[in-house]
C-alpha cells in the first residue's frame, strides 16, 4: 500500500529502489551513486535520504543489516526485498506513464 506521496518524494523512492536493484548498498553509497549516475545533476540531501530509507524499510520494500565494510568498519547496508522489486516495477511503470504524459503535454501545449 504505497502512501500517497508528492512527485518529489515518489521520485526519490523510485531512485533509491532503482539504485538498490543493482545490489546492496549503504546510505552514503546510495547518495553517491545517485549523484554519479545523474552526472552530478541530482544530489540527495541526508535530511531526505534517511527518512526515505526508513519509510521504505517500514513498507517492507527494503531491508537493512549492519555489515563489515571493505575498510573493516561496520555500515548499515540496504538491499531490495522481493516486494521491493515488484514495487520498483510498479513505480517504473507509473513514472514512464507520467513522464510520457508530461512530455506529450509539453509538446502539444
Amino acid at each position, binding site marked *: 500500500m504505497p502512501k500517497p506521496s508528492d512527485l518529489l518524494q515518489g521520485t526519490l523512492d523510485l531512485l533509491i529502489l532503482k539504485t538498490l536493484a543493482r545490489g546492496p548498498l549503504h546510505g552514503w553509497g546510495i547518495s553517491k551513486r545517485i549523484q554519479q549516475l545523474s552526472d552530478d545533476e541530482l544530489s540527495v*540531501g541526508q535530511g531526505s535520504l534517511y*527518512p526515505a530509507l526508513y519509510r521504505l524499510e517500514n513498507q517492507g520494500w527494503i531491508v537493512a543489516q549492519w555489515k563489515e565494510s571493505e575498510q573493516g568498519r561496520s555500515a548499515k547496508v540496504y538491499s531490495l526485498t522481493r516486494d521491493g522489486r515488484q514495487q520498483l516495477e510498479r513505480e517504473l511503470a507509473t513514472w514512464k506513464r507520467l513522464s510520457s504524459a508530461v512530455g506529450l503535454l509539453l509538446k502539444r501545449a
Partner: protein
Amino acid sequence: MTLARFLRIARQRFTAIVRRGAVERDIDRELAWHLEQSILEKIADGASEEDARREAHREFGVLALVTERSRDARGVTTINGFVDDVRYALRLLRRTPAFTAIAGLALAAGIGTTAAAAAVVSFVLARPLPFPDGDRLITIRTDAVEPALFARAASVHQYRAWQARSASLAAVGASRGGSHVIAAEPGAPPLRVQGQAFTPSLFALLGVRPEAGRLFEEDDHPFGPRALVVVISHRLWQRRYGGAPGTIGRRIRVDSVAREIVGILPADFHLQADNIDVWIPLILAPAGEHGPAQDTPQLRVTARLRPGATLAAARADLEAIAADLHPERAAPRLDISPLRRTLYGWTRPRLATLGAMSTLLLALSCANVAALLLARGTLRRRELAMRAALGASRRRIVRQLLTESLVLGLAAAVPAVLVTAFGLPAVSAALGPPPGLFRLTVVPFDVAVLATVAALCVLSSIAFGVVPAIAGSRVHPIDALHGGTARSASGRSWRGGLVALQIALADVLLVAGALLTASYVNVSGRELNFEPRGLLTFSYAVRADEFIRPMPQRQGSSVFEVSPDAARTFETLSDRLKQLPGSRGVAGISFPPVNSLVLPMVTVQPLDATRDSLGAPTAAAYFIVTPEVFATLQTPILHGREFDARDGRDAPWTIVVNEAMARLCWPGGNPVGRRVRLDLGDGERPREIIGVVATMPARLDEPAAQPAVYTSYLQQPRYYRGPAVGMFAGMTFLMRPKGDADVLLAAARRAAAEVSPERPIDEVGAVQSHLYARLAERRNYVTAVDTFALLAALLAIVGLHGVATHVVVGRANEFAVRRALGARRREILALVALPSLWLVAAGLVMGAAIALPAARLLAPQLWGVAPTDIPTYVGASATLLGAAAIGCAAPMRRALRCDPTARLRAE
C-alpha cells in the same frame, strides 16, 4: 500485501515501540557513519581535515533536524507522543484526587463484579472437565421415574444393549450411587461413608488414573476373589490410614463383606457427588441373563461418544436400541446431555442473573464515568481550545482524551482486581449447588481472571471515553480567548441522558434485588408447622438389598417384596431410643419432613362416596412414620389423633392426612373416620383416617401446599409397586433432648451400635441447621444481588450529584445575578432541582420499562411475590427519588450561597 511482508512490518513497528532507545541509537550511529564517510572523502580529495569537517557538516544540514525526521519515519515519535499523553493523563488524575477516586471506584465496582461473574461463567462453560477429552462424555437418563431413589436411571438390560449394539458410543459405563456403605475394621468403630459402585469400564472411559494401586479390571468376575476389592478416596486414606503407604492390600469390611483395598483415587476426583469415599466394582449379570432385577431402572449411565458422533445421532441410536428391547411397551425417551451440563447445568438461572446484573452495573459505572468526564471536559474547555489554537488537530485531541480515559481505566484495574478477588468466592457461594453435586468453590483466581479484568478495563475505557472525547474535541481555537466556562450544548444533553440511564439501570437492579430479597424473606419466614428449634436428627440406613427383592414387573411398573425384618430393625432401634433418659420425644419418619430430595407419591382413593366428597383419586406425598411423630415435631393436630400404640401390626390399618389433603378431598368437612385405599401394592388394606395435621411444606421453596398422607411403619403391605419402595432404605429419626444435645446424640450412637454394630447413625445434626444449610445459599445469592443493587443506586446518586453540582458551578453567575435582582430562594432551588427531577423521572420511567420484562425472566426464582409486584416498583422508585433528593441537597445549598458581590469580584 504478503503475509511475510506483513510480519516484517509488524516486527519493525513492534521494535520501534518496545526498543525505542535501541532504534534511536541505531539512527544516530548510521547518521554519524554517513557524516564520517563524507569527511574522509573530502580529505582524500585533498581538503584539510578542518575544512572537510566544516564542509561535510554544511552539506549534511542541521543534524538534529535530520535525526528528528528520521525518527519520525521509523515511527518512534508517535510512541513518544503517546508516552507524553500518558504522563499528562497521570498528572491530571493526581491533580483531581476526588474525581479520580470516584471514577476509579465506580469502575472497579463494575469491572470487578463483571470479571468475577465472567470467571465463573467461563469456568462452567469452557474450563476443561477434569477428565481427558471430557467434552465427549455424556450422561444418559431415561424417563423412568421409579424407584424414587433411582429416578431417571437405566436398567441393566438397556445398559447391556447399548454396550453391545450402539454405533455412536466409544465406551459406556454404569454406576449405582447414593447407597450408604459401611466400612468397618475389627476392633475399630464402624464408619458410615458414602459409596458408589462403578463398572470397570466407567473408570476406564473417564480416563481416571489412581493415585496409588489400581482400579477395577474387567476380569473382576462376580464369583472370583478379584471382585472382593475396593478403591478408596484420598480423603478416607488420609483420615483413616494417615496416608500410610501400606494401605494398598489391606482388607476392610464393606457391608459385612471383606474386601481388599486395591487402589486410592486422587484427591480431586469426583463424578457429580464429592462426598464419596469408597468405590466397589459394579458387577452386572451376564448379558444373556434375564430377570426382574435386570429390568429395574437402577443404573446411572455415563458414556463416551465416538469421534464425530453428535448428541442427536447418539440419542436416536440409543432410543432405537432401547425401544427394540421391549417392543410391547411404549418406547422410552432418553435425555442425553453432555457431562458438562449434568455437572453444571444447575448454575444457569442464578449465574445468568448475576452475570446480567453485573453487566448492567458495569454499564452504569461506564455511564457514570462518562458523565463525570463530560462535566470535567467543559471545565477543561479552555485548555483544549488552547491546544487547538497551538495547532493540535482534532484527531490529536481525541487521541489525547482517549489516552486519558485509558489511563483512568487501567488505574481502576488495581481496585478492580481486589473487587474480583472478593467477588469470585461470593459469586461461587451464591450459586449453591443442589444436594449431591459438588460445590463450585474451586473457581481459581488465576491469570485468565486477571486478563479478563485487564480486557474489561480497556473495553470500558473505550465505552466511557468515546463520547467525552468527541464532545471534548469539538472546540474552536477562539474558545481559548473566551473567559469562564463556555459550555457545549451537545455535552450537556449527553450528560443528562447518561444520568437518566444510570437512574434507569439502578432502578432495574433495585427492582430485581427487592423481588429476590422478598422471595428469600418469604421462604425463610415461612410457616413450617413444626418446631425445628432444638430438634435433633440423624438418619439410620439399612442396605436396600438386605430387605428388598425385585419381583417380575406388573403392568409396566416394578414390584418389590419387602421383608418384614426391615420394620423390625427400625422398631428395635426406636424402642432403645425411647428409653434414653435425656430425651423428651423420639420418632422416625421415612423422609425428612422438609427438603427431601425425592418424595414418593401415592394415589389416594376415598372409599366412602358421600355428598361432599370428590370421590376422585388424588396423588399425595407418602410418608411412613413411627408413633408420636407429630408430638415430636410439634405439628398441630387439627382433628382426631396421631399414631400411638393402638396402631400396631394387627390393629385395623389407619392413616393421617395433612390439611391440604383434607381440603382437597373433603372440602368443608372433617374426614376423620372416613376410609381410603392407597395403591401401594398387593397386601394393602383399606385405611381409616384417624387425624388431620397442619400442612408442613414439602419443600421450602415450593409455594403450593402439597397434599401428604402418613401411615405407620408397622402397617405396610408386603409388596410395593415401584414408587414407594425407596423409603425402606432408611429412616430419619427426630429427637427432642431434655438437656445436653451432645450427650443425647452420643447415647443414640451407642444405642445404634448395640442394635447392630455395622449400622452406625449418619447425617447427625440439628434440624434447624439442615434447614439453614439450604437457606444459606439462598441468602448468599440474595446478598450478592442486593450488593449489586445498592452499588448501582449509590453510583447513580453520585452521578446525579456530580451533574447537579456541575450545573450549579456553571450557572453560578446567573444565580448570583438572579439573587441580586430579587429572585427568591425557592425560585433558585427550583432552577437546580427541576432539571434533576426531570432526569430522575425519565430514568425511572425508562427503568420500569426495562424492569418489567426483566422481572418476568426472574419469575422462576421468585417465591411468594409476583414479578409485577406494584409495591416493589413503587418502593424502588421512592428509594431512588429519596436518594436523589439527598444527592441534590449539597448542590442546592451551594446555589443559594452564590453571592453577587463575591462573583463580581471573582470576575
